[in-house]
C-alpha cells in the first residue's frame, strides 16, 4: 500500500512539473514581452531584464520559475489590475468558487442518490423512466444551458433569487449557480446508483439477508446501499473536470467573483500572466484531486492497487 501511494505521489509531482514546463514554454511563445515599450533604450531594457532575471540562461530561468510557482509566488497581473500579485487576486476568489462547487457536489450527490434509489426500487415503472430521462438530460445538456434557463425563470421572471451574485446575500445568490452546476453530478450519480443498486438487489447475499428476516431499512442501508456506493468513486474524476469547466461559464453568467470568471476575464483581456498562473492552479487542483481519488480506489478495492503496481 505504501509503495502504491508513493508511486502515485511521484507520478503526480512529475505531471505537475511537466505542466510547469509546458506553461513556461508557452510563456516564451506568447507574443510580445512585458518591456516592449518604445521609449526604453537598450541600457534601460537591459537593466530591466537584469532586474527580473530575463538575461539569464533559459534553464536557470525555468528553475527559478518552478521555484516561484511551488512557493506560491505566481507573478503579477499586467492588465486586469496592474501590478497586483496574482496570489492576492486569487485569495478572495478561491473560497467563493470552492463554496459554490462544494454546494453543487453536495446537492448533486444527495439528489442523485435519492433519484437513483427511487429508480432502482421502482424498477421498470413510470418513476424509473422519469428518473432515467432526467439523468440522461442532466448528463448531456451542458451546465450553462441550465444556468441560463434557471437565471431567466427564477431570477428574471419570478425574482425568487438574485440574477447576479451579490456579496450581501451570498447564500441566496449561490442557490441558482449551485443548482445549475450540480445537474451533471446529480445525473451521473443517479445513473450509477441505479445500475449498481439493481445489480446489488438481485444478488444472492441480498436474498440471504432478506430470508434472515432483516427489516427493510436495515436491508437497504447496511446491505444494499453500502455495496452499491463503492463504485461511485469512479464517477468522481469526470465530475471534477466538469465542475471546473462548468464553473467558468456559470460564474460568468451569474457574475460570481470567483476564480472561473477571473480566468474568463484574463483570457478576454489577454492577461497572459494571470491565465498561466490560473492554469497552474487548476492543474494543481486537478492533479491533487486525481491523486486522492486514485488512492481512495486503492484503499477500497485492492484489485486496482495490485493491477496498477503490476503494470
Amino acid at each position, binding site marked *: 500500500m505504501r509503495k502504491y501511494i508513493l508511486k502515485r505521489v511521484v507520478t503526480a509531482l512529475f505531471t505537475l512539473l511537466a505542466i510547469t514546463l*509546458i506553461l513556461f514554454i*508557452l510563456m516564451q511563445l*506568447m507574443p510580445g514581452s512585458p518591456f516592449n515599450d518604445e521609449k526604453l533604450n537598450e541600457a534601460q531594457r537591459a537593466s530591466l531584464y537584469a532586474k527580473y532575471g530575463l538575461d539569464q540562461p533559459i534553464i536557470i530561468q525555468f528553475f527559478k520559475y518552478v521555484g516561484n510557482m511551488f512557493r506560491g509566488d505566481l507573478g503579477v497581473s499586467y492588465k486586469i489590475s496592474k501590478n497586483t500579485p496574482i496570489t492576492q487576486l486569487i485569495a478572495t476568489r478561491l473560497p467563493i468558487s470552492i463554496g459554490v462547487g462544494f454546494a453543487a457536489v453536495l446537492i448533486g450527490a444527495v439528489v442523485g442518490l435519492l433519484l437513483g434509489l427511487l429508480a432502482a426500487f421502482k424498477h421498470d415503472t413510470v418513476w424509473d423512466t422519469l428518473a432515467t430521462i432526467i439523468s440522461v438530460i442532466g448528463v448531456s*445538456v*451542458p451546465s450553462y*444551458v441550465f444556468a441560463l434557463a434557471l437565471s431567466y425563470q427564477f431570477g428574471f421572471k419570478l425574482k425568487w433569487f438574485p440574477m447576479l451574485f451579490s456579496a450581501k446575500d451570498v447564500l441566496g445568490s449561490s442557490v441558482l449557480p449551485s443548482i445549475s452546476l450540480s445537474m451533471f453530478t446529480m445525473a451521473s450519480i443517479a445513473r*450509477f446508483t441505479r445500475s449498481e443498486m439493481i445489480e446489488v438487489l438481485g444478488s444472492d447475499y441480498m436474498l440471504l439477508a432478506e430470508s434472515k428476516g432483516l427489516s427493510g431499512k436495515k436491508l437497504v442501508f447496511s446491505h444494499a446501499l453500502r455495496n452499491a456506493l463503492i463504485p461511485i468513486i469512479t464517477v468522481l474524476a469526470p465530475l471534477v*473536470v466538469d465542475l471546473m469547466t462548468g464553473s467558468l*461559464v456559470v460564474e460568468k453568467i451569474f457574475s460570481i467573483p470567483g476564480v472561473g470568471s477571473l480566468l474568463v476575464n484574463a483570457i478576454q483581456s489577454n492577461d497572459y500572466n494571470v491565465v498561466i498562473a490560473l492554469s497552474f492552479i487548476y492543474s494543481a487542483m486537478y492533479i491533487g484531486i486525481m491523486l486522492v481519488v486514485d488512492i481512495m480506489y486503492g484503499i477500497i478495492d485492492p484489485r486496482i492497487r495490485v493491477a496498477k503496481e503490476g503494470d
Partner: protein
Amino acid sequence: MSNESAVLNQNEYIPTDADFVLKKNNADIEVDSNFASQSFWKEVIARFIRKRSAVFGLVFVLIITFFAFVGPGMNAYTYSGQNLEQKNLAPRIPIIEYTGLFDGHENINTTSGTKTVNYYFEKKLPDTFYWFGSDNFGRDIWTRTWSGAQVSLIIAVAAAIIDMIIGMSYGLISGYFGGKVDMVMQRILEIANGIPRLVIVTLLLLVFKPGMITIIIALMLTEWVGMSRIARAEMLKLKEQEFVLASRTLGAGSMHIIFSEILPNIIGPIITQVMFSIPTAIFTEAFLSFVGLGIPVPRCSLGSLISEGFNSFTTHPYQIIPPIIVMALLMLSFNLVADGLREALDPKLKEM
C-alpha cells in the same frame, strides 16, 4: 418367471404406421428467425432499432444535420448579412402567424410594466419574415442558427475522427508491443491525462490564432487519451488469441497484424467512443466560444450564438432560444445514439 414375461409382453408397445410420420414443417423452419445464423451487423442493427431512445436520438441527429446543411439556404438571408434597420425583430413565420404564435410580437419590459409590441408593423415591414427573429445587427437567426450548427458539427466530427485515428493507433501500438514500449507510452499518456483539458485548450488558443483548424487541433489534443485507453484494453484482450498467432506464423508483420487483423475486431467499441466524443467536442467548442476563444466573426457556431444571445437574453429571449435548443438536442441525441450503440454492440454489458 413366465408370469413376468407375460406381463411385459402385454405392456410392450407396438409401433403403428401413424407414429412416425414426418411433419412437413419446412415452412415453419423458414419463418423461425434464428439469431445465430444472422451476421453480426444485422444483429447490431436489430438491437439498436429495438431501443427506442437510440432511434429517437438518431432521428434528431439526422434532422439537425439535414437542417444544418440545407437550412441556411432556405431563405434569402445570409449568415453575415446585416440590416441594421431590421434589428431585434421577434420571430415571425408566414401562415403560422395567423394563429397568434410567431407573428412577430414581443413583450417589452418598461418602467410602467410589460407591454406587447410588434415591430414588424411599427417599422412597416408587412412582407418581411424572420422565422427565428433577427439579432442585434439585423441578421437572420434562422440562417445563423443552422450555419452555426453546421460549423459546430463539422468541428466536432472532424475532431472526433482525428482523435480516433491518433488515439486508436497509439493504444493499439502500445498494447501490441507491451513491455518497455508500453511502459513508456503509458507514462506519457498518464502525464497527458493529468493536465486538465480546459488548460490545454485555453493555452493553445491563446498562442495560436482562433479559428476552425485551431479549435479542431485543440479538441484533438484533449480527446485522444480516452480513445487510446479503450484501444489498448481491447488489444490486450485480443492479442493472445489464435487468429493472431496464425497470422504471425504465416509471416505477417506487426503492422499488418495490428491494423488489418485486430483493428476490424475492435471496431465496435471504437465507434461507440467516437459517438461519445462528438457531444463532448460540441460542448467544448461551445464553451470556448462562450469564453471568447471560438470561431472568429462573422462566422458563427452554436457556442458563439449562445454567447451573443446571452447579452440580451432578458430583453430578447428569442435570440438565445434557437441555438440553445439545437445544441441541447444535438448533444442529447448524440449521447442517446452512443448509448444505444454501446448496448447494441455489446449486449452483455449491464444496463447503465
